[in-house]
Protein backbone atom coordinates (compact mmCIF):
# COMPACT_ATOMS: atom_id res chain seq x y z
CA UNK A 1 0.00 0.00 0.00
CA UNK A 2 1.28 3.42 -0.93
CA UNK A 3 0.00 5.30 2.09
CA UNK A 4 2.80 7.88 2.02
CA UNK A 5 1.79 9.34 -1.32
CA UNK A 6 -1.64 10.26 -0.09
CA UNK A 7 -0.64 12.54 2.75
CA UNK A 8 -1.01 15.66 0.63
CA UNK A 9 2.64 16.55 0.96
CA UNK A 10 3.42 15.77 -2.62
CA UNK A 11 2.45 18.30 -5.31
CA UNK A 12 0.63 15.67 -7.39
CA UNK A 13 -2.87 16.75 -6.34
CA UNK A 14 -6.03 17.81 -8.11
CA UNK A 15 -7.31 21.37 -8.10
CA UNK A 16 -8.77 22.15 -4.69
CA UNK A 17 -12.52 21.89 -4.46
CA UNK A 18 -14.94 23.69 -2.17
CA UNK A 19 -16.98 22.08 0.55
CA UNK A 20 -16.02 19.34 2.93
CA UNK A 21 -13.61 17.87 0.44
CA UNK A 22 -11.77 21.19 0.08
CA UNK A 23 -8.53 19.76 1.44
CA UNK A 24 -6.43 18.85 -1.58
CA UNK A 25 -6.62 15.12 -2.14
CA UNK A 26 -4.50 12.94 -4.32
CA UNK A 27 -6.15 10.83 -7.00
CA UNK A 28 -5.59 7.57 -5.18
CA UNK A 29 -6.91 8.99 -1.95
CA UNK A 30 -10.35 9.89 -3.29
CA UNK A 31 -10.40 6.64 -5.22
CA UNK A 32 -9.75 4.64 -2.09
CA UNK A 33 -12.42 6.63 -0.28
CA UNK A 34 -14.92 5.89 -3.05
CA UNK A 35 -14.12 2.18 -3.25
CA UNK A 36 -14.45 1.88 0.51
CA UNK A 37 -17.99 3.22 0.39
CA UNK A 38 -18.86 0.98 -2.53
CA UNK A 39 -17.82 -2.11 -0.58
CA UNK A 40 -19.07 -1.10 2.86
CA UNK A 41 -22.85 -1.70 2.46
CA UNK A 42 -22.49 -5.32 1.34
CA UNK A 43 -19.87 -6.08 3.97
CA UNK A 44 -22.01 -4.53 6.70
CA UNK A 45 -25.11 -6.34 5.46
CA UNK A 46 -23.41 -9.73 5.49
CA UNK A 47 -21.94 -9.04 8.92
CA UNK A 48 -25.35 -8.17 10.38
CA UNK A 49 -27.56 -10.73 8.62
CA UNK A 50 -25.00 -13.50 8.09
CA UNK A 51 -22.18 -13.42 10.61
CA UNK A 52 -24.16 -12.17 13.61
CA UNK A 53 -26.67 -15.07 13.48
CA UNK A 54 -23.75 -17.48 13.09
CA UNK A 55 -22.13 -16.02 16.19
CA UNK A 56 -25.43 -16.31 18.04
CA UNK A 57 -25.74 -19.92 16.91
CA UNK A 58 -22.27 -20.56 18.29
CA UNK A 59 -23.36 -19.02 21.60
CA UNK A 60 -26.67 -20.94 21.77
CA UNK A 61 -24.88 -24.23 21.21
CA UNK A 62 -23.49 -24.06 24.77
CA UNK A 63 -26.94 -23.77 26.30
CA UNK A 64 -29.82 -26.02 27.02
CA UNK A 65 -32.29 -23.80 25.22
CA UNK A 66 -35.72 -24.94 24.10
CA UNK A 67 -38.27 -22.42 22.86
CA UNK A 68 -41.07 -24.46 24.36
CA UNK A 69 -39.46 -24.35 27.81
CA UNK A 70 -37.54 -21.06 27.79
CA UNK A 71 -37.49 -20.87 31.60
CA UNK A 72 -35.22 -23.92 31.79
CA UNK A 73 -32.47 -22.30 29.70
CA UNK A 74 -29.13 -23.10 31.24
CA UNK A 75 -25.46 -22.97 30.35
CA UNK A 76 -24.28 -26.54 29.87
CA UNK A 77 -20.90 -26.12 28.22
CA UNK A 78 -20.10 -28.76 25.66
CA UNK A 79 -22.95 -31.09 26.63
CA UNK A 80 -24.84 -30.49 23.38
CA UNK A 81 -21.79 -31.53 21.39
CA UNK A 82 -21.24 -34.59 23.55
CA UNK A 83 -24.92 -35.47 23.16
CA UNK A 84 -24.55 -35.51 19.37
CA UNK A 85 -21.84 -38.14 19.52
CA UNK A 86 -23.65 -40.14 22.18
CA UNK A 87 -26.94 -40.25 20.29
CA UNK A 88 -27.19 -43.19 17.92
CA UNK A 89 -29.51 -41.34 15.52
CA UNK A 90 -27.15 -38.38 15.27
CA UNK A 91 -24.13 -40.62 14.72
CA UNK A 92 -26.08 -42.33 11.97
CA UNK A 93 -26.83 -38.92 10.43
CA UNK A 94 -23.12 -38.03 10.41
CA UNK A 95 -22.23 -41.34 8.75
CA UNK A 96 -25.07 -40.96 6.24
CA UNK A 97 -23.97 -37.47 5.32
CA UNK A 98 -20.41 -38.62 4.71
CA UNK A 99 -21.52 -41.67 2.73
CA UNK A 100 -23.86 -39.53 0.67
CA UNK A 101 -21.24 -36.87 -0.01
CA UNK A 102 -18.32 -39.15 -0.83
CA UNK A 103 -20.26 -41.55 -3.05
CA UNK A 104 -22.32 -39.04 -4.92
CA UNK A 105 -19.45 -36.61 -5.52
CA UNK A 106 -17.14 -39.39 -6.78
CA UNK A 107 -19.81 -40.71 -9.11
CA UNK A 108 -20.50 -37.20 -10.35
CA UNK A 109 -16.81 -36.55 -10.93
CA UNK A 110 -16.44 -39.74 -12.96
CA UNK A 111 -19.58 -39.34 -15.07
CA UNK A 112 -19.14 -35.59 -15.29
CA UNK A 113 -15.65 -36.06 -16.70
CA UNK A 114 -16.90 -38.59 -19.26
CA UNK A 115 -19.67 -36.22 -20.27
CA UNK A 116 -17.28 -33.28 -20.52
CA UNK A 117 -14.95 -35.31 -22.78
CA UNK A 118 -17.92 -36.18 -25.01
CA UNK A 119 -18.93 -32.53 -25.25
CA UNK A 120 -15.38 -31.21 -25.70
CA UNK A 121 -15.63 -30.67 -29.47
CA UNK A 122 -17.04 -27.20 -29.89
CA UNK A 123 -20.11 -27.50 -32.09
CA UNK A 124 -23.60 -26.12 -32.21
CA UNK A 125 -24.95 -29.60 -31.51
CA UNK A 126 -22.93 -29.93 -28.31
CA UNK A 127 -23.85 -26.47 -27.08
CA UNK A 128 -27.56 -27.15 -27.52
CA UNK A 129 -27.24 -30.59 -25.92
CA UNK A 130 -25.49 -29.04 -22.91
CA UNK A 131 -28.24 -26.45 -22.54
CA UNK A 132 -30.82 -29.24 -22.31
CA UNK A 133 -28.62 -31.39 -20.09
CA UNK A 134 -28.52 -28.58 -17.54
CA UNK A 135 -32.31 -28.63 -17.06
CA UNK A 136 -32.14 -30.96 -14.02
CA UNK A 137 -29.90 -28.44 -12.24
CA UNK A 138 -32.37 -25.61 -12.81
CA UNK A 139 -35.50 -27.45 -11.67
CA UNK A 140 -36.67 -26.72 -8.15
CA UNK A 141 -34.90 -29.36 -5.99
CA UNK A 142 -38.19 -29.86 -4.21
CA UNK A 143 -39.86 -30.85 -7.49
CA UNK A 144 -36.97 -33.21 -8.24
CA UNK A 145 -37.74 -34.99 -4.99
CA UNK A 146 -41.43 -35.20 -5.84
CA UNK A 147 -40.73 -36.58 -9.32
CA UNK A 148 -38.67 -39.46 -7.99
CA UNK A 149 -41.00 -40.13 -5.12
CA UNK A 150 -43.80 -40.54 -7.65
CA UNK A 151 -41.77 -42.57 -10.13
CA UNK A 152 -40.37 -44.99 -7.56
CA UNK A 153 -43.50 -45.67 -5.53
CA UNK A 154 -44.13 -49.42 -5.53
CA UNK A 155 -47.91 -49.07 -5.93
CA UNK A 156 -48.45 -46.62 -8.79
CA UNK A 157 -44.94 -45.52 -9.78
CA UNK A 158 -43.89 -45.99 -13.36
CA UNK A 159 -40.53 -47.46 -12.37
CA UNK A 160 -41.31 -48.67 -8.87
CA UNK A 161 -44.30 -50.79 -9.88
CA UNK A 162 -42.42 -52.80 -12.49
CA UNK A 163 -39.35 -53.18 -10.31
CA UNK A 164 -41.43 -54.47 -7.42
CA UNK A 165 -43.35 -56.85 -9.70
CA UNK A 166 -40.19 -58.18 -11.30
CA UNK A 167 -38.94 -58.96 -7.82
CA UNK A 168 -36.07 -56.51 -8.04
CA UNK A 169 -35.44 -54.62 -4.83
CA UNK A 170 -37.64 -54.42 -1.74
CA UNK A 171 -41.39 -54.94 -2.08
CA UNK A 172 -42.32 -51.63 -0.44
CA UNK A 173 -40.36 -49.55 -2.91
CA UNK A 174 -36.77 -48.41 -3.09
CA UNK A 175 -37.30 -45.20 -1.12
CA UNK A 176 -39.07 -46.81 1.81
CA UNK A 177 -36.51 -49.53 2.44
CA UNK A 178 -33.70 -48.66 4.83
CA UNK A 179 -31.21 -50.67 2.79
CA UNK A 180 -31.74 -48.89 -0.52
CA UNK A 181 -33.15 -45.44 0.30
CA UNK A 182 -29.80 -43.70 0.75
CA UNK A 183 -28.50 -45.15 -2.51
CA UNK A 184 -31.55 -43.90 -4.35
CA UNK A 185 -30.95 -40.42 -2.91
CA UNK A 186 -27.35 -40.60 -4.10
CA UNK A 187 -28.51 -41.47 -7.61
CA UNK A 188 -31.05 -38.63 -7.57
CA UNK A 189 -28.28 -36.23 -6.58
CA UNK A 190 -26.17 -37.55 -9.46
CA UNK A 191 -29.02 -37.05 -11.90
CA UNK A 192 -29.42 -33.50 -10.72
CA UNK A 193 -25.81 -32.36 -10.55
CA UNK A 194 -23.65 -34.44 -12.93
CA UNK A 195 -24.34 -32.04 -15.84
CA UNK A 196 -23.25 -29.09 -13.74
CA UNK A 197 -20.07 -30.95 -12.81
CA UNK A 198 -19.54 -31.64 -16.52
CA UNK A 199 -20.04 -27.94 -17.26
CA UNK A 200 -17.33 -26.84 -14.82
CA UNK A 201 -14.93 -29.52 -16.12
CA UNK A 202 -15.77 -28.60 -19.71
CA UNK A 203 -14.78 -25.00 -19.06
CA UNK A 204 -11.45 -26.37 -17.83
CA UNK A 205 -11.02 -28.62 -20.88
CA UNK A 206 -11.70 -25.73 -23.24
CA UNK A 207 -9.08 -23.57 -21.61
CA UNK A 208 -6.31 -26.18 -22.03
CA UNK A 209 -3.47 -24.88 -24.22
CA UNK A 210 -4.04 -26.24 -27.74
CA UNK A 211 -0.35 -26.37 -28.63
CA UNK A 212 0.45 -28.73 -25.73
CA UNK A 213 -2.30 -31.13 -26.80
CA UNK A 214 -1.11 -30.88 -30.40
CA UNK A 215 2.48 -31.57 -29.37
CA UNK A 216 1.39 -34.74 -27.58
CA UNK A 217 -0.37 -35.89 -30.72
CA UNK A 218 2.62 -35.05 -32.92
CA UNK A 219 4.93 -37.01 -30.60
CA UNK A 220 2.83 -40.07 -31.23
CA UNK A 221 1.32 -40.48 -27.78
CA UNK A 222 -1.66 -42.81 -27.66
CA UNK A 223 -5.05 -41.44 -26.71
CA UNK A 224 -4.72 -42.96 -23.21
CA UNK A 225 -1.24 -41.49 -22.72
CA UNK A 226 -2.45 -38.09 -23.87
CA UNK A 227 -5.28 -38.33 -21.36
CA UNK A 228 -3.26 -39.43 -18.34
CA UNK A 229 -0.04 -37.52 -19.05
CA UNK A 230 -1.37 -34.28 -20.51
CA UNK A 231 -5.07 -33.69 -19.97
CA UNK A 232 -5.41 -34.98 -16.42
CA UNK A 233 -2.50 -33.03 -14.86
CA UNK A 234 -3.53 -29.83 -16.61
CA UNK A 235 -7.11 -30.34 -15.48
CA UNK A 236 -6.26 -30.62 -11.78
CA UNK A 237 -7.27 -27.03 -10.90
CA UNK A 238 -10.66 -27.47 -12.57
CA UNK A 239 -11.19 -30.87 -10.96
CA UNK A 240 -10.34 -29.39 -7.58
CA UNK A 241 -12.73 -26.51 -8.08
CA UNK A 242 -15.56 -28.81 -9.14
CA UNK A 243 -14.85 -31.16 -6.23
CA UNK A 244 -14.84 -28.41 -3.62
CA UNK A 245 -18.06 -26.90 -4.90
CA UNK A 246 -19.97 -30.13 -5.20
CA UNK A 247 -18.64 -31.57 -1.93
CA UNK A 248 -19.81 -28.56 0.01
CA UNK A 249 -23.20 -28.61 -1.69
CA UNK A 250 -23.65 -32.34 -1.23
CA UNK A 251 -22.72 -32.13 2.43
CA UNK A 252 -25.49 -29.61 2.98
CA UNK A 253 -28.06 -31.79 1.20
CA UNK A 254 -31.53 -31.05 2.47
CA UNK A 255 -34.25 -30.48 -0.11
CA UNK A 256 -34.34 -33.81 -1.91
CA UNK A 257 -33.96 -35.83 1.32
CA UNK A 258 -36.57 -33.86 3.21
CA UNK A 259 -39.11 -34.27 0.42
CA UNK A 260 -38.59 -37.91 -0.50
CA UNK A 261 -37.91 -39.67 2.80
CA UNK A 262 -37.82 -37.00 5.50
CA UNK A 263 -34.80 -38.80 6.94
CA UNK A 264 -36.52 -42.13 7.28
CA UNK A 265 -37.06 -45.07 7.27
CA UNK A 266 -35.56 -45.52 10.75
CA UNK A 267 -33.08 -42.67 10.27
CA UNK A 268 -31.57 -44.55 7.32
CA UNK A 269 -31.40 -41.38 5.23
CA UNK A 270 -31.13 -38.81 8.01
CA UNK A 271 -28.48 -36.24 7.16
CA UNK A 272 -27.01 -33.53 9.37
CA UNK A 273 -29.08 -30.78 7.77
CA UNK A 274 -32.33 -32.71 8.02
CA UNK A 275 -31.58 -33.57 11.64
CA UNK A 276 -30.78 -29.94 12.48
CA UNK A 277 -33.95 -28.65 10.80
CA UNK A 278 -36.09 -31.20 12.65
CA UNK A 279 -34.47 -30.53 16.01
CA UNK A 280 -34.40 -26.76 15.63
CA UNK A 281 -37.54 -25.78 13.81
CA UNK A 282 -39.91 -28.62 14.62
CA UNK A 283 -38.91 -29.48 18.20
CA UNK A 284 -37.46 -25.98 18.86
CA UNK A 285 -34.43 -27.51 20.50
CA UNK A 286 -32.35 -24.43 19.65
CA UNK A 287 -29.21 -25.28 21.59
CA UNK A 288 -28.87 -28.82 20.25
CA UNK A 289 -29.73 -27.82 16.67
CA UNK A 290 -27.15 -25.02 16.78
CA UNK A 291 -24.53 -27.51 17.89
CA UNK A 292 -25.38 -29.73 14.90
CA UNK A 293 -25.13 -26.71 12.59
CA UNK A 294 -21.71 -25.83 13.99
CA UNK A 295 -20.46 -29.38 13.61
CA UNK A 296 -21.61 -29.31 9.99
CA UNK A 297 -19.64 -26.10 9.39
CA UNK A 298 -16.61 -27.68 11.03
CA UNK A 299 -16.83 -30.78 8.82
CA UNK A 300 -17.21 -28.66 5.68
CA UNK A 301 -14.20 -26.53 6.59
CA UNK A 302 -12.11 -29.65 7.28
CA UNK A 303 -13.07 -31.23 3.97
CA UNK A 304 -12.18 -28.05 2.07
CA UNK A 305 -8.81 -28.01 3.82
CA UNK A 306 -8.16 -31.69 3.04
CA UNK A 307 -9.11 -31.24 -0.61
CA UNK A 308 -6.81 -28.24 -0.87
CA UNK A 309 -3.96 -30.24 0.63
CA UNK A 310 -4.52 -33.27 -1.61
CA UNK A 311 -4.52 -31.13 -4.73
CA UNK A 312 -1.34 -29.30 -3.66
CA UNK A 313 0.34 -32.70 -3.16
CA UNK A 314 -0.85 -34.05 -6.50
CA UNK A 315 0.21 -30.87 -8.21
CA UNK A 316 3.70 -31.13 -6.75
CA UNK A 317 4.01 -34.78 -7.74
CA UNK A 318 2.81 -34.34 -11.31
CA UNK A 319 4.01 -30.88 -12.21
CA UNK A 320 7.03 -30.91 -9.93
CA UNK A 321 6.69 -27.46 -8.45
Amino acid sequence: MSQTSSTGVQPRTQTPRLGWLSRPRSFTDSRRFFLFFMAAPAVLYVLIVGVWPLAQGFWYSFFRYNLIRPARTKFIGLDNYIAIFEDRGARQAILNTFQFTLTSVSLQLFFGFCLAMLLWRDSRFNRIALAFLLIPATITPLVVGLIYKALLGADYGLIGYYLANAGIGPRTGLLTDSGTALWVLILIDCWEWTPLMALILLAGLKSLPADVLEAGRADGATAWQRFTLIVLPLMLPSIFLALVLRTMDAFRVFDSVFVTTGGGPNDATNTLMVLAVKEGLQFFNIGYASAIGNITILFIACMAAVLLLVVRRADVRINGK
Partner: protein
Amino acid sequence: MAQVSGRQVFAERTAVLLITIVMLLPVVWLITTAYKPSNQIFSIPPRLDFQPTLDQFRNIFGYFDVVSLLRSSVAISAGTTVLSLLLGVPCGYALARSRSRYATGFAYFFLAIRMVPAIASLIPFYLMMRDIGLLGSWWAVVIINTMLNCAFVTWMMFSYFRALPRDMEEAALTDGCTQLGAFFKVAVPAARSGIIACVLFCVMFSWNDFLYPMFLTTLDSKPLSVALLTAYGTKDITWGSLGALAHFSTIPIVLMALFLNRYFVQGATNGVQ
Protein backbone atom coordinates in the same frame (compact mmCIF):
# COMPACT_ATOMS: atom_id res chain seq x y z
CA MET B 1 -8.93 -31.22 -31.89
CA ALA B 2 -8.00 -31.79 -35.49
CA GLN B 3 -8.47 -34.64 -37.97
CA VAL B 4 -11.26 -36.75 -36.57
CA SER B 5 -13.25 -39.14 -38.66
CA GLY B 6 -16.88 -38.53 -39.40
CA ARG B 7 -17.66 -41.86 -37.81
CA GLN B 8 -16.20 -40.79 -34.47
CA VAL B 9 -18.18 -37.55 -34.49
CA PHE B 10 -21.31 -39.54 -35.30
CA ALA B 11 -20.67 -41.97 -32.43
CA GLU B 12 -20.07 -39.10 -30.01
CA ARG B 13 -23.23 -37.32 -31.05
CA THR B 14 -25.34 -40.44 -30.74
CA ALA B 15 -24.00 -40.96 -27.24
CA VAL B 16 -24.70 -37.34 -26.27
CA LEU B 17 -28.19 -37.52 -27.73
CA LEU B 18 -29.00 -40.75 -25.86
CA ILE B 19 -27.70 -39.36 -22.58
CA THR B 20 -29.71 -36.18 -23.01
CA ILE B 21 -32.91 -38.09 -23.72
CA VAL B 22 -32.48 -40.40 -20.73
CA MET B 23 -31.68 -37.47 -18.44
CA LEU B 24 -34.76 -35.58 -19.55
CA LEU B 25 -37.24 -38.47 -19.31
CA PRO B 26 -38.22 -37.76 -15.67
CA VAL B 27 -38.89 -34.13 -16.55
CA VAL B 28 -41.02 -35.12 -19.52
CA TRP B 29 -42.89 -37.54 -17.28
CA LEU B 30 -43.61 -34.76 -14.77
CA ILE B 31 -44.95 -32.48 -17.48
CA THR B 32 -47.16 -35.15 -19.04
CA THR B 33 -48.59 -36.14 -15.64
CA ALA B 34 -50.29 -32.78 -15.52
CA TYR B 35 -52.32 -33.64 -18.64
CA LYS B 36 -53.46 -37.06 -17.48
CA PRO B 37 -56.93 -37.61 -16.07
CA SER B 38 -56.75 -38.62 -12.40
CA ASN B 39 -58.03 -42.15 -12.91
CA GLN B 40 -55.22 -42.90 -15.34
CA ILE B 41 -52.51 -41.65 -12.99
CA PHE B 42 -53.49 -44.35 -10.53
CA SER B 43 -53.86 -47.20 -12.96
CA ILE B 44 -52.45 -50.62 -12.28
CA PRO B 45 -50.20 -51.39 -14.05
CA PRO B 46 -48.98 -47.82 -14.68
CA ARG B 47 -49.34 -46.87 -18.32
CA LEU B 48 -47.69 -44.41 -20.62
CA ASP B 49 -50.60 -43.72 -22.99
CA PHE B 50 -53.43 -41.46 -21.88
CA GLN B 51 -56.22 -39.14 -23.02
CA PRO B 52 -54.85 -35.60 -22.63
CA THR B 53 -56.97 -33.31 -20.48
CA LEU B 54 -56.69 -29.95 -18.78
CA ASP B 55 -58.69 -31.07 -15.74
CA GLN B 56 -55.66 -30.93 -13.46
CA PHE B 57 -55.11 -27.28 -14.23
CA ARG B 58 -58.75 -26.57 -13.46
CA ASN B 59 -58.39 -28.51 -10.21
CA ILE B 60 -55.40 -26.61 -8.88
CA PHE B 61 -57.22 -23.31 -9.16
CA GLY B 62 -59.78 -24.84 -6.84
CA TYR B 63 -57.26 -26.18 -4.33
CA PHE B 64 -54.80 -23.31 -4.29
CA ASP B 65 -54.85 -19.58 -4.51
CA VAL B 66 -52.45 -19.79 -7.45
CA VAL B 67 -52.37 -16.03 -8.00
CA SER B 68 -51.36 -15.38 -4.42
CA LEU B 69 -48.68 -18.09 -4.55
CA LEU B 70 -47.27 -16.66 -7.76
CA ARG B 71 -47.35 -13.16 -6.30
CA SER B 72 -45.33 -14.32 -3.28
CA SER B 73 -42.80 -16.15 -5.44
CA VAL B 74 -42.36 -13.14 -7.72
CA ALA B 75 -42.13 -10.68 -4.82
CA ILE B 76 -39.50 -12.77 -3.02
CA SER B 77 -37.42 -13.37 -6.15
CA ALA B 78 -37.63 -9.80 -7.38
CA GLY B 79 -36.87 -8.29 -3.99
CA THR B 80 -33.94 -10.60 -3.43
CA THR B 81 -32.50 -10.04 -6.88
CA VAL B 82 -32.73 -6.24 -6.80
CA LEU B 83 -31.25 -5.94 -3.31
CA SER B 84 -28.49 -8.49 -3.98
CA LEU B 85 -27.37 -6.67 -7.11
CA LEU B 86 -27.53 -3.24 -5.49
CA LEU B 87 -25.30 -4.49 -2.69
CA GLY B 88 -23.16 -7.02 -4.52
CA VAL B 89 -22.18 -5.35 -7.79
CA PRO B 90 -20.59 -2.22 -6.22
CA CYS B 91 -18.88 -4.37 -3.61
CA GLY B 92 -17.47 -6.78 -6.19
CA TYR B 93 -16.25 -3.81 -8.21
CA ALA B 94 -14.63 -2.16 -5.21
CA LEU B 95 -12.86 -5.36 -4.14
CA ALA B 96 -11.61 -5.99 -7.68
CA ARG B 97 -10.27 -2.46 -8.10
CA SER B 98 -8.94 -1.96 -4.60
CA ARG B 99 -5.19 -2.12 -4.13
CA SER B 100 -5.58 -2.99 -0.48
CA ARG B 101 -4.08 -6.31 0.50
CA TYR B 102 -7.30 -7.11 2.38
CA ALA B 103 -9.47 -6.98 -0.74
CA THR B 104 -8.91 -10.59 -1.83
CA GLY B 105 -9.40 -11.72 1.75
CA PHE B 106 -12.78 -10.03 1.83
CA ALA B 107 -13.72 -11.67 -1.47
CA TYR B 108 -12.94 -15.08 0.01
CA PHE B 109 -14.96 -14.14 3.07
CA PHE B 110 -17.99 -13.70 0.80
CA LEU B 111 -17.31 -17.05 -0.84
CA ALA B 112 -17.08 -18.73 2.56
CA ILE B 113 -20.39 -17.19 3.63
CA ARG B 114 -22.05 -18.89 0.67
CA MET B 115 -20.69 -22.26 1.77
CA VAL B 116 -22.16 -22.12 5.27
CA PRO B 117 -25.10 -24.51 5.65
CA ALA B 118 -28.39 -22.61 5.67
CA ILE B 119 -29.57 -24.09 8.94
CA ALA B 120 -26.67 -22.71 10.98
CA SER B 121 -27.83 -19.15 10.46
CA LEU B 122 -31.53 -19.91 9.98
CA ILE B 123 -32.34 -20.70 13.62
CA PRO B 124 -30.86 -17.52 15.14
CA PHE B 125 -32.26 -15.57 12.19
CA TYR B 126 -35.70 -17.04 12.87
CA LEU B 127 -35.52 -15.80 16.47
CA MET B 128 -34.24 -12.42 15.28
CA MET B 129 -37.15 -12.00 12.87
CA ARG B 130 -39.58 -13.08 15.58
CA ASP B 131 -38.23 -10.41 17.91
CA ILE B 132 -38.50 -7.59 15.38
CA GLY B 133 -41.89 -8.78 14.14
CA LEU B 134 -40.98 -9.60 10.54
CA LEU B 135 -41.65 -13.32 10.90
CA GLY B 136 -44.28 -14.40 8.41
CA SER B 137 -43.66 -11.63 5.92
CA TRP B 138 -41.92 -11.71 2.56
CA TRP B 139 -39.30 -9.40 4.05
CA ALA B 140 -37.93 -12.08 6.33
CA VAL B 141 -37.25 -14.35 3.34
CA VAL B 142 -35.94 -11.49 1.20
CA ILE B 143 -33.54 -10.35 3.94
CA ILE B 144 -31.90 -13.72 4.47
CA ASN B 145 -31.92 -14.65 0.76
CA THR B 146 -30.28 -11.32 -0.02
CA MET B 147 -27.50 -12.12 2.42
CA LEU B 148 -26.60 -15.36 0.62
CA ASN B 149 -27.18 -14.00 -2.87
CA CYS B 150 -25.30 -10.76 -2.39
CA ALA B 151 -22.36 -12.86 -1.19
CA PHE B 152 -22.65 -14.81 -4.44
CA VAL B 153 -22.97 -11.65 -6.57
CA THR B 154 -20.01 -10.01 -4.83
CA TRP B 155 -17.77 -12.99 -5.45
CA MET B 156 -18.94 -13.37 -9.04
CA MET B 157 -18.58 -9.69 -9.91
CA PHE B 158 -15.23 -9.58 -8.11
CA SER B 159 -13.85 -12.25 -10.42
CA TYR B 160 -15.57 -10.64 -13.41
CA PHE B 161 -14.30 -7.09 -12.83
CA ARG B 162 -10.83 -8.38 -12.03
CA ALA B 163 -10.67 -9.90 -15.53
CA LEU B 164 -11.67 -6.56 -17.12
CA PRO B 165 -8.89 -4.04 -17.82
CA ARG B 166 -8.89 -0.91 -15.65
CA ASP B 167 -7.52 1.38 -18.39
CA MET B 168 -10.93 2.54 -19.58
CA GLU B 169 -12.07 3.63 -16.13
CA GLU B 170 -8.77 5.30 -15.39
CA ALA B 171 -8.96 7.16 -18.69
CA ALA B 172 -12.51 8.29 -17.86
CA LEU B 173 -11.34 9.46 -14.43
CA THR B 174 -8.45 11.51 -15.81
CA ASP B 175 -10.87 13.01 -18.33
CA GLY B 176 -12.78 14.49 -15.42
CA CYS B 177 -15.45 11.83 -14.99
CA THR B 178 -16.62 11.41 -11.40
CA GLN B 179 -15.97 8.17 -9.54
CA LEU B 180 -19.64 7.19 -9.71
CA GLY B 181 -19.73 8.20 -13.37
CA ALA B 182 -16.79 5.95 -14.17
CA PHE B 183 -18.54 3.09 -12.39
CA PHE B 184 -21.94 3.50 -14.03
CA LYS B 185 -20.89 4.65 -17.51
CA VAL B 186 -17.76 2.58 -18.04
CA ALA B 187 -17.45 -0.37 -15.65
CA VAL B 188 -21.08 -1.52 -15.44
CA PRO B 189 -21.71 -1.58 -19.22
CA ALA B 190 -18.48 -3.53 -19.73
CA ALA B 191 -19.60 -6.11 -17.18
CA ARG B 192 -23.11 -6.39 -18.62
CA SER B 193 -23.01 -10.11 -19.33
CA GLY B 194 -21.67 -10.87 -15.84
CA ILE B 195 -24.53 -8.88 -14.35
CA ILE B 196 -27.10 -10.74 -16.45
CA ALA B 197 -25.64 -14.01 -15.20
CA CYS B 198 -25.97 -12.73 -11.63
CA VAL B 199 -29.61 -11.82 -12.18
CA LEU B 200 -30.29 -15.27 -13.61
CA PHE B 201 -28.73 -17.04 -10.65
CA CYS B 202 -30.34 -14.80 -8.03
CA VAL B 203 -33.78 -15.37 -9.52
CA MET B 204 -33.12 -19.10 -9.76
CA PHE B 205 -31.85 -19.48 -6.18
CA SER B 206 -34.64 -17.48 -4.60
CA TRP B 207 -37.41 -18.94 -6.76
CA ASN B 208 -36.33 -22.52 -6.09
CA ASP B 209 -35.56 -22.16 -2.39
CA PHE B 210 -38.04 -23.62 0.05
CA LEU B 211 -36.20 -24.06 3.35
CA TYR B 212 -36.35 -20.36 4.26
CA PRO B 213 -39.92 -19.62 3.15
CA MET B 214 -41.12 -22.87 4.75
CA PHE B 215 -40.23 -21.57 8.21
CA LEU B 216 -40.34 -17.83 7.66
CA THR B 217 -43.66 -17.32 5.86
CA THR B 218 -47.27 -17.90 6.82
CA LEU B 219 -50.27 -19.20 4.92
CA ASP B 220 -50.86 -15.83 3.24
CA SER B 221 -47.30 -15.12 2.28
CA LYS B 222 -46.06 -18.57 1.25
CA PRO B 223 -44.60 -18.97 -2.24
CA LEU B 224 -45.15 -21.75 -4.78
CA SER B 225 -42.36 -23.98 -3.52
CA VAL B 226 -43.85 -24.22 -0.03
CA ALA B 227 -47.33 -24.84 -1.43
CA LEU B 228 -45.96 -27.77 -3.43
CA LEU B 229 -44.55 -29.35 -0.30
CA THR B 230 -47.64 -28.89 1.84
CA ALA B 231 -49.94 -29.98 -0.98
CA TYR B 232 -48.15 -33.26 -1.17
CA GLY B 233 -49.58 -35.46 1.52
CA THR B 234 -53.09 -34.05 1.51
CA LYS B 235 -55.23 -36.83 0.19
CA ASP B 236 -57.38 -34.98 -2.36
CA ILE B 237 -54.38 -33.83 -4.29
CA THR B 238 -53.08 -36.19 -6.93
CA TRP B 239 -49.72 -36.33 -8.64
CA GLY B 240 -51.48 -34.75 -11.58
CA SER B 241 -52.34 -31.62 -9.62
CA LEU B 242 -48.81 -31.48 -8.29
CA GLY B 243 -47.51 -31.81 -11.85
CA ALA B 244 -49.76 -28.97 -12.93
CA LEU B 245 -48.62 -26.79 -10.03
CA ALA B 246 -45.00 -27.74 -10.74
CA HIS B 247 -45.49 -26.23 -14.20
CA PHE B 248 -45.60 -22.81 -12.57
CA SER B 249 -42.63 -23.40 -10.35
CA THR B 250 -40.27 -25.04 -12.84
CA ILE B 251 -41.09 -23.85 -16.35
CA PRO B 252 -40.28 -20.12 -15.93
CA ILE B 253 -36.82 -20.94 -14.57
CA VAL B 254 -36.11 -23.70 -17.08
CA LEU B 255 -37.06 -21.43 -20.00
CA MET B 256 -34.98 -18.61 -18.57
CA ALA B 257 -31.96 -20.88 -18.22
CA LEU B 258 -32.44 -22.26 -21.74
CA PHE B 259 -32.77 -18.87 -23.41
CA LEU B 260 -30.03 -17.28 -21.36
CA ASN B 261 -27.88 -20.41 -21.56
CA ARG B 262 -24.75 -18.43 -22.45
CA TYR B 263 -25.08 -16.48 -19.20
CA PHE B 264 -25.95 -19.58 -17.23
CA VAL B 265 -22.75 -21.24 -18.40
CA GLN B 266 -20.83 -18.09 -17.54
CA GLY B 267 -22.33 -17.94 -14.09
CA ALA B 268 -21.67 -21.58 -13.31
CA THR B 269 -18.06 -21.53 -14.50
CA ASN B 270 -16.72 -17.98 -14.26
CA GLY B 271 -18.52 -17.10 -11.09
CA VAL B 272 -16.86 -19.70 -8.97
CA GLN B 273 -13.25 -19.34 -9.99
